[in-house]
Structure formats: structure tokens, C-alpha cells
């Protein structure tokens, strides 16, 4: 998985990678990990400043950030694990619990709410057979409610891993879930 990457997007990961592969193990021992770390460090005056992108990177590769990852990031950036823990927990969008391979975030803020977001959410939960935040039995899905995703013109907006689905109606939900399950484009 080694490609040159611009430092500006060092914490991000393209949709395909996150949806199809999940990595387990020490991240900064992989080629990709080393490269990301190096690119991030080149961008900031201090190592500490690379913390957010590196946590983002870990999450994009693993789906969530577990304590062992925090220790790894801390060591890579010369920080204490406790400090990394404080930052990782401050930001709610870092997952501190495992999630399914498809992490579905349904926006329920004003615009989306007016466009039946609640129904979309409940449809997702019903189709995947989960309660909010749970991992489905097959390990494929976790569905949660999200605040405004910044695409209000296309309500209801649903984010699956790093990809936006726009104008989602309750009726489209079964198809989306089926495609995701089948490894196809939603």
C-alpha cells in the first residue's frame, strides 16, 4: 500500500482502502505507516502537531483507535500515552470502540431532519439489524447518528466510511445496504 502522498492529506485515506481492508498490528512498522509519519512530520514544526493526522490515519486503517494504537502513536511522536488518550477522547469523531467495516453516519441535523433523516436512520438500523453504535453480527455495519455533515443542500446526507451519499431517502436504504454487503459501490 505504498504510494507517495502529499503531506496535506496525510491523515486521510481513500474510500476503497478503508472499506475493503482493515489492518491489524503495529502501524508504524508498515511501509505505509512509516511514509505517513515521515510526511506528517515534514509538515509541522513540532512532532506533537502531527498528532491529529496520525490518529486520523490510524482510524482510517483500523476503523478505530485502541489503547495499543495510542501507545504506538505516542512513541512515534515523543508524547505520553496519557496525552494521546486525552486528545483522542476529546474529539468524538475518533472511534474509541471498534466499528463495522462500513461505518455509516446518518446526518440528523436541521436540513436532513426536515428531509426524513430520522426515517433514513431507522431504516439503516432495521436493514443492518443493529442498534445505534453496535456492530452487526456479520461485522459489516455500524450505524450512528451524526451532526451536520456540511452538505445540507443534498439532504439527507449519509457518510459511509469516507464517502458521502447524497439525497438519501428511506427507500434507497435497502439497496445501499445490499450493495455494501456485496462489496459493490453503494
Amino acid at each position, binding site marked *: 500500500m505504498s504510494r507517495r502522498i502529499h503531506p496535506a492529506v496525510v491523515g486521510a485515506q481513500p474510500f476503497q482502502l478503508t472499506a475493503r481492508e482493515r489492518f491489524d498490528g503495529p502501524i508504524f512498522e508498515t511501509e505505509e505507516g512509516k511514509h505517513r509519519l515521515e510526511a506528517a512530520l515534514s509538515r509541522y514544526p513540532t512532532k506533537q502537531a502531527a498528532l491529529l493526522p496520525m490518529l486520523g490515519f490510524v482510524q482510517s486503517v483500523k476503523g478505530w483507535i485502541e*489503547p495499543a494504537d*495510542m*501507545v504506538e502513536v505516542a512513541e512515534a511522536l515523543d*508524547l*505520553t*500515552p*496519557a*496525552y494521546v*488518550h*486525552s486528545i483522542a*477522547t*476529546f474529539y468524538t469523531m475518533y472511534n474509541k470502540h471498534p466499528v463495522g467495516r462500513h461505518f455509516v453516519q446518518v446526518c440528523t441535523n436541521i436540513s436532513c431532519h426536515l428531509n426524513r433523516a430520522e426515517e433514513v436512520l431507522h431504516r439503516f438500523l432495521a436493514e443492518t439489524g443493529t442498534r445505534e453504535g453496535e456492530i452487526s453480527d456479520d461485522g459489516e455495519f455500524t450505524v450512528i447518528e451524526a451532526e451536520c455533515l456540511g452538505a445540507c443542500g443534498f439532504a439527507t446526507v449519509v457518510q459511509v466510511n469516507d464517502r458521502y451519499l447524497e439525497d438519501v431517502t428511506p427507500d434507497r436504504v435497502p439497496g445501499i445496504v445490499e450493495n455494501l454487503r456485496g462489496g459493490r459501490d453503494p
Partner: protein
Amino acid sequence: MAENGAKATVTLTIDGVEVTVPSGTRVIEAAEHVGVVVPRYCYHPGIPTRPAQCRMCLVEVEGRPKLEPSCTLQAADDMVVNTASDTARTARQSVIEFLLVNHPLDCPICDAAGQCMLQDYAYVTNQLESRVDEPKRIMGRDRISDDILYFADRCVICTRCVRFMRDVAEDDSLIVAQRGDKAYIDTFPGRELDNPFQGNIVDVCPVGALVHEDFVFKARSWDMDATASVCPGCPTGCNVTIDTKENQIVRVKPRHNAAVNSWWMCDYGRKHLVMTNRGVRAEVPLIRDGGGDGDDGGELRPVDWATALDWVAEKVAALGAPGGSAVVSPDASNENLFYLRTLLDRLGVADAAFRVPQGETAELPTVPTLKLRADRAANAAGAGFFGGRRADGPPDGPAGGALVVLDDELEGAGEDFGGSADFFLYLGTRLPGPARNADAVLPIATFAEMDGTFTNFENRVQRFHQALRPPGLARPGWMVLSRVLARLGDGEAVNDVRGAFERMAAQAPAFAGLTWDGIGLKGAPAAGSAAEAAGVAGPAEAGA
């Protein structure tokens, strides 16, 4: 500094009182000069960072549209500050109301009750009824270190504890986890704090969120007596307050002294201070005078003080100046050592060995004077003043003449220790095995059971005060020794430490010019010491 024409001082008005303070002073500190303690949570005078995050210290400044946090606001010329205006009061009241939204109000079982800044301010701002209908957030309790518990629901997230660890102890292992109303203090999951100075986070906590485990549910603040004292753990001599209840030490807290320990102390010192005052003690004078029921009359027998002192004085008088040796404890007070030296001189004993246990050192990075030092004794400097000789290894008694031991536990001494001395006098807080060879055992008080002074590593003479009643017939060493000497026609029997100190200052050059009252609660440098020149004046005491 007159750089750029900047003035050395500024003059402002706080609550109608004009006050002149050094420029750069924050309003919260300037207010203390006029006796106004502005309510605060996040500000602590010993912690350098001032996040101004609790908003408790907001004050009104004339001509400014908004309230300003006085903990970061610099005092300026002609500033007119009102700490108690209606707007300031209302703001404070809102802060308290917000804090109380989720606070459990478990004051009846909280160890901080009575000494809690949330309780105090809630009363002051007169919040008698809650306007909250929602259930409270419940978080529970956590262990922060092997002996510190964290009651998350009581926490006001002032981050004093986190900033003490990070900015004073330079240890980044205590953090705020989560945010908003879910925020709490935490270490890394599965790890605990492990810093030799971590106990201070309990002292800086303005509420009952952080508590020492060995203090939990032990005492209510209004049932305790506080006594100014000095930690005997090492030659640093941190100034402390000993809290006692029913003649037991229940808690030790650092007492501010800018020249010694700033606002802090080490964890070893806290534990050590409590432990030195536990255990089985020598409580009754014992003499081997041939009296009593024993057939051979060679047994130690308990007697009252008058009998013991008469007998010891008689013995000393009869001996003349036979020479011999002495073993003294480097934990003995200056006064005890002084009187002992006077007695030793009379006996012709020049040598007084003292043995100092050694331990690991620990430094508090940002406070250069505060260091847990390798010498684990309070008064090695004092022992040195009175002709003491630092020694290693087990003590050995003299071949003849007098043997006097002052509170050394005689570890490593042989079974027949002192057997060949003509007269063996033991003054001690306890009665270790070899001390039973003595001809007389005089039970004395520990430092916590009497008034006295220690000399710290910089030769700073510091007072400590009686926090406990001595057990049984034990009495301060200086009181006992002054009576032996008085019976020999040397000076008066003293009952008050002032008398003991006065005589010491008159006769011992190191203490020349010092008086008990003059030393005060912050100590004073011994005559001719390096610390004498340094003379540090401490900043205002108020409002930890």
C-alpha cells in the same frame, strides 16, 4: 526594570481601596493585598499556567464593557476594579449554578466538606434551590495512583491537578479525558500515576474530587486540629501542617514557604511523618538502681520522673568527667541536641556519632530548593553544630566511662552493647533491645509531640509545634535534660520551649541572635550560614 520607561509599580483601586503593587501583578493577587480573596478554581499561586477557564474570578473593571478574569488580568495604573458588583456577583452565581448541575452534593460523606471551595462559594452565592429537573450525570470513582482516589462526580475540571503534574512536576501522565460535561481526569487506561510528588494534586484540588486513600472517611474537617510543623523526612525540611484528630495524625499537608518547599512536599515525607509517630513507645522512666523486687537488684525498674531524674543526676555527679562516647539521632531537635551537648561536656564526652539512613533522591523539576534528599533525617545539620560526627555502620559502646544515647534505635548494635560502660544513659522515644542494657532509660517525645526547631540543609532554623500528646510519661528531651542539668546546678528546669531556645541561642554560636518569636513560622537562617544572606520574603499566603 526601567526598560522602555516601564514603571516598577502600578497603583489601582480595588473595591474602593487604593493599592500599589509591582507591575505585572495580576488583579487576583493585587486584591489579596487589600484583603480581598477573589473566588477562584483554576488559579493556584503555585502553578505557573493560568488558563482562565473556570470563570469564577470574573471582576468588573470600570470603563470595560465585559467582566474580566482577574487571574490573568494585569493590574494597571488607575484601574478601578470592583470584585463584588452586582454583575460580578451574578456571573459568579451562574458559574456555581452550572457546576452544581451535575455535582452530587454528597457533602455528608465527602472528605472535603468544610474545606471545600465549591461548598463555600455555593453558600456565599446563596444557591439554596436548584432549578434543574434533569437527572444528574453519574460517573463514579477511579483510582489515579496506588493511594489517590478520584471521585469524578465532584470534579469541577479546574485542571489544577493536571497542571501541577504537567507544569510543576513536568510529568505528562495525568490528563483531562473527554470534554464538556463528560470530561474527567484520567491517566492512560491501565496505568497509574507514579511520581514522587503526586500527592500534591490532592492538596490543590479545590473540592473533594481527589482524596488520599488513607484519609478517606477518616475525619471531618471540623473535627481536626491543624498544627504548623516541619517534615522530618529529609534535610529539606518542608513546612507542613499536621492535621490531628483524637491524638492521631490523620493527614499531612504542605505549608507554603517560598524559601524552602514553595507550596509542595514529597510523598515519602507524608508517609514518613505519619509512620514516625506510630508503633510501640517508651512511656515510663526506667532505672537500674538496685531497688525493686528483684533479688539481685540488677533489673531495670519503672519509677516516677522525680526518682529517675534524681538518680541520674546523682550518677552523673558521682562520675565526674570520665569521658566515653555518645550516639545521637540526626532526627533530634536542636534544643535536644543542645542540652545533650551540655551534659556531654560535663561528662567529658567529646565524640557524638550520628548515623544517617540513606535513600533515593527525587527532585521537583521547577522548584530547585525542594528535593527529597539522600539523607533521611531532619537535623543532620543541627547534629553537626553540636559536635556530632557522621558515622557509618553499627554503633559500638566505649570501653569505659559514660555512654549516652539520644534516640538512636541502635540498629546493628551487639547484644551486650554498652555493657562495659561505667554508666549507660538512654534517652529515647522507643525501647529497642540494646537499650535494655542501659542503667537508665528516659522516655522522650517525638518531634510531633513537642515544640522545637530543626536546622535544614541550608542551615535554616525552622520551628515545629506540638501536634500530639506524648504517650505515658514521655516528655520533650529538652525538658528532661534541662532538669538533669538543673539538679547539677547548671541552669534552670525549662517547661517552655522558649526557655530552651533562649539558652541555646545564648550559648551556641550557630543560633546567636535568633529568637523563638523572631524565627516565626517560616524559619530563619542560622548565624553565618549561606542562607542568611539569601533572605527570601514569601509572597502573600492567602487562598490556596
